[in-house]
């Protein structure tokens, strides 16, 4: 056991089989390819072909929202996807497009996912504004407030998942959220500016709450599981109990969403 370097001779034999490697590659690419790029033109064929697959709830909501926004608001709300604070179409982006995405997400996991992605979007907008020298005090204040709001919603969903006994999903959501905000923050750090210097600490403070939540999830558990039984493919809708439905609808009412309009849309889509 003296020569540690010999270890590699044995351990190098541990690898993925050809089949396993291909399987994972296929899984990864499938997920990579079904993600939308909000700032690019969508391919019509990919929107419609995805309606036939079992999708992750999040991508379905995104596609449905964009499809709907095209039929309702037409070019305006589609173009709004890349709007920045200060642009004419920005309010369409936040009040129509993002609201649609929130409403159309079914499961708690996907709702959490939507909120996380909206929060990220705020940071992307900050970066874009800074690049265009448009990141002023007003923009900063608005983005901060909006980010905090949506980050809080992510935290609410994480807690909900925990309370439902879906510890893995809760941990996944909080880890995914933290990692992506961390990545975005690092990009923003590289941008100079007085406003950026005030903005980033606020974002960091917001994220502390999420980190605390994550620590809470990972506190010593009494049950021991080897492979978590919650590793179900998340493209299936969760089986909601009547209580779940009720509480989620109540939540929507609290958030001031105009249910009537969206209920019509939901039923027309057969949802």
């Amino acid at each position, binding site marked *: 056991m003296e020569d*540690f370097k010999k270890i590699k001779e044995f351990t190098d034999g*541990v690898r993925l089989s050809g089949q396993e490697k291909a399987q994972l590659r296929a899984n990864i690419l499938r997920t990579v390819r079904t993600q939308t790029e909000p700032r690019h033109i969508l391919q019509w064929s990919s929107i419609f072909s995805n309606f036939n697959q079992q999708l992750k709830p999040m991508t379905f909501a995104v596609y449905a929202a964009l499809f709907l926004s095209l039929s309702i608001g037409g070019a305006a709300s589609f173009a709004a996807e890349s709007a920045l604070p200060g642009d004419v179409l920005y309010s369409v982006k936040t009040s129509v497009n993002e609201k649609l995405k929130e409403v159309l997400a079914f499961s708690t996991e996907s709702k959490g996912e939507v909120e996380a992605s909206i929060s990220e979007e705020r940071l992307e907008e900050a970066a874009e504004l800074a690049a265009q020298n448009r990141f002023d005090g007003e923009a900063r204040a608005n983005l901060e407030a909006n980010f905090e709001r949506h980050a809080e919603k992510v935290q609410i969903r994480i807690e909900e998942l925990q309370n439902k006994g879906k510890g893995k999903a809760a941990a996944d959501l909080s*880890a995914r959220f933290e990692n992506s905000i961390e990545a975005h923050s690092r990009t923003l750090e590289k941008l100079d500016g007085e406003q950026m210097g005030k903005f980033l600490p606020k974002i960091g403070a917001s994220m502390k709450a999420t980190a605390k939540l994550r620590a809470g999830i990972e506190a010593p558990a009494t049950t021991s599981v080897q492979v978590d039984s919650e590793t179900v493919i998340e493209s299936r809708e969760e089986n909601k109990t009547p209580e779940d439905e009720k509480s989620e609808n109540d939540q929507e009412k609290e958030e001031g969403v105009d249910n009537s309009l969206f209920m019509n849309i939901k039923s027309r889509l057969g949802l």
Partner: protein
Amino acid sequence: MDEMEFIKSYDAYADAIFRHCYFRLYDREEAKDAVQETFLRAWKYSKDNRIDNVRALLYKIARNIVADKWRKKKTLSLDLLLEQGFEPSDGEHKKIMLNAEAKNFIKLLNNLDDNEREIVIMRYVDGLGPDEIAKIMSERAGRIGEAFSANVVSVRLNRAINKIQKLIQ
């Protein structure tokens, strides 16, 4: 990073990432899940950030994922693993029994704490040099300004090895 480059980096590094995760989680399925998650997060990261060193990024992400999984993994299937031997790569052939040295290595590794084990694995299983390890460990999510130099890595590595050698005696 476009899709072509992404696929290339998968083909190049998937096995290495798998191996790293396997020796830390002792579970094939968990390790595969970690590989998948690592590459997905790397893809997302690449959408907003330029990547200078793909391998370092992949290891950084994998470490975070393993840390998350480790915290949730309360039962160690280590004893079971050592009894039954490693699964060979495709599960079709007879299980390969670990030779005594390898068994010892794994048992010894188990006596280290997760941080020590991580460095030993990166050095002797992954074959990374102290410089590379320092780069990989230097940006830990949530901890700002933690500086990792190759020296720090070497010091920690030596400490871990000493610990192991004391256990052998």
